């Protein structure tokens, strides 16, 4: 009571604390304790819609109008909830269904009608196939194994595989030098035949047994006339593998084995 009386007194005395005067200072009013607005039960204007009612009449409707959203009816809210429930259930069911068909089976299924149908047949029977593979310059070799998975790119997974393949290697051989130098013509008849295992001519000559056999003069002969050259050679290899993934671009042909 005392506060209210004091506030009322203050309001009447200073125009900055008088709510209805143009010199009203809000900050000062907030600092002043116990100061009450003329009608303390007035609700604050939080948004445009609330201000609409106090604006003067002569302003045009377009300036004033704010799109007013109608509150949603209970039915529409209920319908939306039901739709949400349905889709989430659907998603889970779809996931369940998708999981039941195995990925690899589904992949093969799609190829059944096309030209890869024979391959799919082999896959379904887990039959043995003979696969021809290639490298950049020609046929590499063959793989024989049981077909575990296929796809449209001819990527395959084989099991219990026997691979026979060729590999290009560079093999060093001792060979006469091109365009020999002066003084070598007399020594042409002496030739070394054995293919060395050393990678360079010095290594070859450094070999103990070679030194004993050949002797000094022959050593000079070799150095003058021969050089170690790398020759490409197609080496045949074979191996057994338990499980391999073969990438489709290396496949040439697939043969179905009984």
């Amino acid at each position, binding site marked *: 009571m005392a506060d209210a009386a004091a506030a009322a007194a203050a309001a009447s005395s200073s125009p900055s604390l008088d709510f209805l005067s143009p010199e009203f200072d809000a900050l000062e009013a907030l600092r002043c304790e116990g100061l009450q607005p003329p009608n303390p039960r007035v609700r604050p204007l939080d948004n445009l819609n609330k201000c609409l009612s106090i604006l003067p009449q002569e302003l045009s409707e377009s300036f004033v109008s704010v799109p007013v959203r109608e509150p949603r009816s209970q039915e529409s809210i209920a319908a939306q909830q039901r739709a*949400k429930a349905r*889709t*989430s*259930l*659907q*998603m*889970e069911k779809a*996931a369940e269904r*998708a*999981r039941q068909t*195995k*990925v*690899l089976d589904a*992949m093969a299924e799609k190829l059944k009608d096309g030209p890869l149908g024979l391959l799919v047949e082999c896959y379904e029977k887990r039959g043995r196939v003979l696969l021809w*593979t290639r*490298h*950049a310059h020609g046929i590499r070799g063959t793989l024989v194994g049981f077909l*575990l*998975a*296929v*796809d*449209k*790119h001819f*990527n*395959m*997974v084989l099991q219990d595989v026997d691979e026979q393949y060729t*590999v*290009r*290697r*560079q093999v060093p051989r001792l060979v006469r030098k091109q365009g020999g130098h002066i003084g070598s013509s007399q020594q042409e008849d002496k030739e070394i035949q054995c293919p060395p295992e050393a990678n360079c001519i010095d290594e070859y000559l450094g070999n103990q047994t070679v030194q004993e056999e050949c002797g000094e003069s022959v050593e000079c002969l070799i150095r003058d006339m021969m050089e170690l050259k790398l020759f490409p050679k197609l080496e045949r290899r074979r191996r057994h*593998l*338990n*499980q*391999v*993934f*073969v*990438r489709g*671009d*290396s496949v040439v042909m697939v043969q179905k084995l009984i």
Partner: protein
Amino acid sequence: MGKRGERQSERTLVCVIQALMGLELLVELRNDLSIRGFLDDCDNAMNVIIKDAMIEDVEGCQKHMPLIFVRGSNIRFVHIPDNVNIMQAVEERRLVLDRAALAYMGGKGLAPMPKVLETQIPDTADAAI
């Protein structure tokens, strides 16, 4: 395209390689190089990252490299470890990815995100798991 066949990786056998992530494999390249190491990552184009790799060429020369990236088109074979059942591995990976995707969407299963992001979601969600 988004919905049909769900994941791009599950339409080709790349999913088999992806199911082998973290295992020790031997990858044979088209130039007859073989790389033995742990498969760190594999993407839809079969590009792989191999960790702690031992590289061997045709002649038999070996070299050790801690981390190596191989372009998918250069791969010829991938030797799968004997004890792995690929059918099981692929299904398991699919389960993990499905669960991750569902968890990411807050378990409500609403309209999924556009395709570009969908392929990224499982990776981040996996990390969170």
